[in-house]
């Protein structure tokens, strides 16, 4: 069975500090991977997607970057956090076909002060 793990579970960071969030998928080779951001009480905004190792496509510009260093790992980062980065970050994977079902991780709650 496939499992998706996100770390950390929650973070409280200062404005201007760096950030690194991680996501790993076990039990599925070559998945499509996605990062989403969700404001409290809001909808999900797709940030990045990756269909293969080393390749990441940006969907929106939020002063964030993403990388896929391994087939099963997806990293979201920034060098300088903004207050607007606060929210719920969700990683998801899907099979390698267009608009297949997305399987979401448990998420990381980020608070920027």
């Amino acid at each position: 069975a496939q499992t998706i793990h996100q770390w950390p579970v929650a973070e409280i960071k200062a404005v201007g500090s760096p950030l690194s969030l991680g996501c790993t998928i076990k039990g599925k080779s070559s998945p499509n991977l996605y990062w989403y951001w969700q404001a409290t009480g809001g909808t999900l905004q797709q940030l990045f997607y990756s269909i293969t190792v080393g390749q990441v496509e940006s969907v929106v510009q939020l002063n964030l970057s993403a990388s896929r260093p391994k087939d099963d790992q997806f990293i979201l980062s920034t060098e300088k956090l903004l207050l607007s980065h606060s929210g719920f970050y969700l990683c998801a994977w899907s099979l390698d076909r267009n608009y297949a079902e997305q399987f979401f991780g448990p998420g990381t709650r980020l608070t920027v002060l």
Partner: protein
Amino acid sequence: SQWGEENLQALSIQEGEDVTMNCSYKTYTTVVHWYRQDSGRGPALIILIRSNEREKRSGRLRATLDTSSQSSSLSITAAQCEDTAVYFCATGYGNEKITFGAGTKLTIKP
């Protein structure tokens, strides 16, 4: 935006009643996903309907898709307290870009 201008809607009904949630989208899509999100957790797919399907059922859930009006609906029959959640529709356009609607916060009262 793929979706029309909308904010998170809130619906509150009594247990046992039926409820329908609607979504409309702007550009052509081949599939609409409906997800359910429980508080503090990631969304989970509950039903997926493709452009060649007008209706899809799964237990007490029924999704419809009208490509001519670019709209989709999700109905829950005989709602139960455990149906309380936020429901999102989502669709794809372009490559792997996925857009989520604003969502409906559904509360089922006992």
